[in-house]
């Protein structure tokens, strides 16, 4: 069996080598910096499936003295078939020489058999100083490809393509900060073309990566569904002495109830970040506001949830469907009264439940004291608010490059619900929200159906980009 391929990501300093490795390896711990020389040693980032290594990416330091190295290599006349040996001899001879420490680090994996992924910055002009390093890489004779990474807005890609074509057969563009799933797969497929011995391994990598991506989506959908379901059924209770609690007790209980809901959301977000391998993410975002003014304001509804009109419409549709079932049972002899009454009932209930967060109830007396309970959630809008916040978070995290190090601002700027949930989705979700509110066995089934539905929504968005 062929050894799993390795790819040394090499190039000039500060051209985004580490960012590319970070994005491809889905590892946000890779040191990425705008300061040259951040990477001092080569590091391996294997992709393993069931303990079998399918390929390894190797992050390397940038060339520091390419002209001098090339001069050493050229000192003795060397036919083309002996050039690989000459580079290997250079690595052996200077391996302990600090002057060529960076060159030794980057050439070592190549002379050990790694393919070359040469990275340049397509947003900066081509310069002849790159020729020395490209020539050294050509001397190794290893399979290679060039990656044009545009770090900034300017575009010198055409000049780079012309220059690179003299040294590399495969030239691709790849932006590690923006690259999504499809570009990631395309790059793996390009790497498979570098050497036919590596094709099988990389083909399996593509399949595994696709399957893994689907699993990440599934787990995210399950996390969201579970959180919404648990938040809808969550209650907080305290023991009180009298059967009529004072206002401070009520406020305290309600605050505790809201805090629990916020914690649930925060916990779900952390879990989603973990699913997508973002362990060191820096983010700024608003916490889940459960103040009536915020939760039910037009602004909040516009950003995350549904307006009162939309909620009432969804309630009426759900009630109407239930009533129509009765009409159907009586073969229409009810003159469609079931549907009409159901729609009116559903709409009215939704109208009055819109602004209600939760009741505070006093439960039965036990051993001389009473139990005061807040929850479960009454607000019709709450599940939409929570769902859309979590969907938004998932979409941002799932499409966030692991190469990004700056603070992520999680502030939706438009009606998220319209972008990600179609009308049919919303009707279906309203039905499932209603079932999940029952907090019984049927609610558990509804939760599974909810997760399945969210999975489809996320797949629709995430597998196409």
């Amino acid at each position, binding site marked *: 069996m062929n050894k799993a391929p390795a790819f040394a990501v090499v190039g*000039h*300093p*500060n051209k985004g080598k*580490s960012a590319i490795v970070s994005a491809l*390896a*889905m*590892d946000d*711990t*890779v*040191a990425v*910096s*705008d*300061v*040259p*020389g*951040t*990477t*001092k*040693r*080569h*590091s*391996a*980032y*294997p*992709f*393993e*499936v*069931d*303990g079998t290594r399918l390929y*390894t990416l190797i*992050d390397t*330091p*940038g*060339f*520091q*003295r*390419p*002209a*001098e190295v090339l*001069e050493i290599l050229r000192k003795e006349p060397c036919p083309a078939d002996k050039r690989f040996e000459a580079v290997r001899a250079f690595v052996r001879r200077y391996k302990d020489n600090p*002057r060529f420490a*960076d060159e030794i680090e980057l050439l070592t994996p190549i002379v050990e058999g790694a393919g070359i992924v040469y990275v340049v*910055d397509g947003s*900066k*002009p081509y*310069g*002849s*100083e*790159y*020729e*020395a390093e490209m020539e050294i890489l050509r001397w190794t004779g290893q399979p290679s490809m060039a990656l044009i990474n545009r770090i900034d807005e*300017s575009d010198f890609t055409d000049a780079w393509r012309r220059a690179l074509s003299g040294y590399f057969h495969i030239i691709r563009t790849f932006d590690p900060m923006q690259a999504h799933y499809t570009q990631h797969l395309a790059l793996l497929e390009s790497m498979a073309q570098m050497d036919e011995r590596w094709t099988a391994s990389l083909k399996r990598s593509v399949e*595994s*990566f696709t*399957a*893994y991506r689907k*699993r990440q989506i599934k787990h995210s959908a399950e996390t969201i569904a579970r959180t919404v379901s648990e938040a809808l059924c969550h209650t907080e209770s305290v023991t009180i002495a009298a059967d009529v609690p004072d206002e401070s007790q009520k406020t305290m209980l309600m605050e505790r109830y809201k805090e629990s809901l916020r914690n649930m959301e925060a916990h779900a977000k952390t879990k989603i970040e973990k699913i997508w*391998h973002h362990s060191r993410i820096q983010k700024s975002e608003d916490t889940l506001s459960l103040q009536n003014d915020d939760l039910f304001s037009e602004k909040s509804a516009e950003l995350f949830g549904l307006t009162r009109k939309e909620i009432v419409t969804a309630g009426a549709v759900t009630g109407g469907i239930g009533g129509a079932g009765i009409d159907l049972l009586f073969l229409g002899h009810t003159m469609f009264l079931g549907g009409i009454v159901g729609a009116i009932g559903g709409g009215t209930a939704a109208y009055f439940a819109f602004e209600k967060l939760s009741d505070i109830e006093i439960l039965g007396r036990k051993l001389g004291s009473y139990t005061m309970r807040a929850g479960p959630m009454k607000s019709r809008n709450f599940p939409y608010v929570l769902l859309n916040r979590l969907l938004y978070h998932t979409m941002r995290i799932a499409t966030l490059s692991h190469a990004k190090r700056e603070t992520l601002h999680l502030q939706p700027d438009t009606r998220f619900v319209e972008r990600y949930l179609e009308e049919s989705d919303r009707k279906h979700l309203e039905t499932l929200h209603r079932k999940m509110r029952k907090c019984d*066995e*049927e609610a558990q089934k509804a939760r599974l159906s909810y997760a399945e539905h969210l999975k489809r929504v996320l797949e629709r968005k995430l597998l196409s980009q």
Partner: protein
Amino acid sequence: MKLSDYFDLQTLVKRHGNDKAALRTFGLAHASLFAQPPKLLHVWMREHIRKENDGTTPGEHYARPIADIAFWSNLVACIFGLTAAFALLHYNGKEPVNLLYYLFAAVALPLLTMIGSVAAMVRAMRTHSAMVRFSPAYWLQRILGFLHKEKETRSYRIDPLLGDWIAIRRAQSMGVCYGIGILAGLLVTITLHDVAFVWSTTLAITPDAFERFVKAVAFPWRDWMPQAVPSAELIAQSRYFRLGGEIDPEMVAKAQRLGEWWPFLAMATAVYTIGLRMLLWAVAYVGYAHALRKAVLRIEGVEALLEAMREPTVRTGAEHPNRSVGDSLSHREAEATRAVLKGAYDIVVGWACEKEKLPAVAESVGTSASRYIAIEGSETYEEKRAELQKISGEALFLVKGWEPPISEFADMLEVASEYAEAITVVPVGLPPDYGIADERWLSVWRRWLQMQPIEKTEVI
């Protein structure tokens, strides 16, 4: 899979469900079972199950009362059937036994309960049945929680669907036992006593109509066991009215014939009470097995467990985390003194620049010189050194601001510093406008020079 396995699995999932690597190893070894999750789980359980001191598993221990309760409830049903038969067939010779009582208790009543069972099955298949909650068996399951106080088994849950089907299945077994009891009661009674059967009703039913009813009841066996089908003559002779308190002398004379009803009654009991119920029992068993399979897959954590077995473990990321991190300059303050750009220099050196463009680039940053030399990027090390030896006086190095400084440039600055009185490095911006590079790039150059100071050299 047994009911006890269902309980044991709840414990094992909690105990071993997080060991993803071990689960995947197991999955790879049993990949042929991926399409049969219950079987896969069963094999996995067998590998992990731990027996108690008495040789049973915690699940078997927990489920044992269910079997015990089933046994005792079946026994009670059987005794009830037997007692019912004795009561219904009680005959003291003064008045014959109305066989309609027996038919009601042995056939009609069980048939009614069977209809209820079928309704419960249909409902259980669709959704959680409320009907089954009236079943004593359902409540017996609830009692299990009180019977077991061990920490491990106290947390066991019974899936409502499974609870329904346990109840439905138990009800059918009790029904069969009841039928066996009543049939045994009939056989014992007719063996030990002389019983005269009659049919008596207030309803205006003629013997012909009753005969049609009897023939319809005997439909399943009338062709292959005609002796168990009462004749028209017997039916006519068995009509009985209690009016006057006296038995028709003709009926008394033919008392032996009145006893000939028993094969019909026995067959009716065997076919309807026992046979049909056994059929329902078999259906209930299938439903129960299906519910058990479903319940097993619905145990909290089982789905994740199966996924860990079936889905490949994917590992991506650093082999040795943080190995690549060098001495990052990004956190150091750039405190190096900044050079002031002069209007003119003795020499302008273009680093990796074309010579003909140098005056224009120098002008773009607001300076000029009497001499210009360009160090081409493609030149060899020696050629570069030779060029730098031409430097004298104050030198201005124009470098590409967007290209990060590398050691090769540091080497050249050191060579240049041997010949120059002072060196000012000016990183320039992108062509075609050039000019001084933006602050982001300048700061990179300043920090770099700060980290490896070179004599007489400053960055603007």
